[in-house]
């Protein structure tokens, strides 16, 4: 599948978030903490946007049976994954909507931390962020399993779904690092 512009934008977002996380590791104190929060924020924004994109693909597949937003043939494609009526939803809710809601929560937690790093609730928010990220991990594992083994004509890899999965993993790493900073006194 050719790299299209939205996919390149999402990959660039993941690269920026990863670079910020690496940069944060080498910085001490408040500066490093702030950079790590920025990294998690970028991961969550990429997750939000890629989830929205998969939801748009879902709608266009329903509407016309095909989508110009992603390929429908080959190993790397969306048609057989997002278009599979049996696996493209969680209790009737499209995975794109589930992703949007989940990443909204993660975005809120990190945005709150970013806006007031020294708040009384900052420590509990780092814990909530880590727990919320961990809660999403089984779904990522399940969805990768579905892509590779369950959908029609499996295995398939949906690139935009993979971006969302990587966003969650990246966010989780940032949340873990932040919690470590808080507990070891490196927060500020």
């Amino acid at each position, binding site marked *: 599948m050719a790299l299209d512009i939205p996919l390149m934008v999402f990959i660039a977002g993941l690269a920026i978030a990863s670079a910020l996380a690496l940069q944060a590791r080498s910085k001490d104190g408040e500066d490093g903490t702030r950079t790590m929060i920025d990294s998690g924020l970028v991961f969550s924004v990429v997750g939000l946007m890629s989830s929205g994109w998969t939801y748009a693909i879902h709608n266009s597949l329903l509407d016309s049976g095909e989508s110009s937003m992603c390929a429908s043939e080959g190993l790397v494609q969306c048609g057989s994954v997002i278009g599979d009526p049996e696996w493209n939803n969680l209790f009737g809710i499209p995975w794109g909507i589930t992703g949007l809601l989940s990443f909204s929560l993660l975005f809120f937690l990190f*945005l709150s931390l970013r806006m007031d790093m020294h708040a009384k609730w900052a420590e509990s928010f780092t814990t909530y962020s880590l727990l919320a990220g961990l809660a999403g991990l089984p779904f990522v594992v399940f969805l990768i399993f579905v892509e590779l083994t369950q959908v029609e004509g499996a295995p398939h890899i949906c690139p935009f779904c993979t971006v969302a999965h990587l966003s969650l993993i990246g966010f989780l790493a940032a949340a873990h690092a932040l919690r470590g900073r808080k507990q070891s006194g490196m927060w500020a």
Partner: protein
Amino acid sequence: MARRRRAAAPKGRDDDIRLMAALVTFGVTSMILMAVMLLAPVVKVGPSEGELAPDFSVQAYSGGEWGDFRLSNLFNKSWAPGGDGNWIVVQYIDTDCPYCWNEGELMSQLHSQWNQKVTFVTVVVELGIQGHDSSRGEVEAFRDKTPYEGCKTNSNCADRPGNPHSWVYIDDLNSRTSGDWELPGTPFAALLQPDGIVAWNPQQPGNHPDGEEMEGALQRLVGGS
């Protein structure tokens, strides 16, 4: 005695910014959702008239052997009213239900009259009623009208009214599709336009001429047979 000064720890803001963060989050998420709606508007999926029929990907028996079947493969998305394309009858039955047993004859008649313009699909479910145990063998026998004890609870499938059915029968004995179709009971049959939009649902009699059944709906909507 000189007082020791404690190092001043950084303090958080006096105002709670979480409400502001929640509002910003809501705004960002709303903007993304609006962009999605502009790119690809939401398609209403359901069994009601005017909605896109719920799709399913299941195993189907068309005589001889079972194979993959996906309802949406029958849809012609470029269909326009008055244009060419096969309409679709989706019928739900339970092979142990006496009403479904009797409807076998009506379905044979409808199929022989409309098969040039209408594709028939029968989905077999197993209602949670004592004695309504079914199996793929029973589904095959019900469709093919071959000897098998157990149709209509304790009748021989070969005695089913009507002819052997030549259209596809779907295995939904685990009721994976009936929730999406809001199945009210069996038998149930809906008529879909060639593009997959539900055109007639017997559960919405207010939208139809008085007392209209499937046969009348076919005449009114498909016509010309």
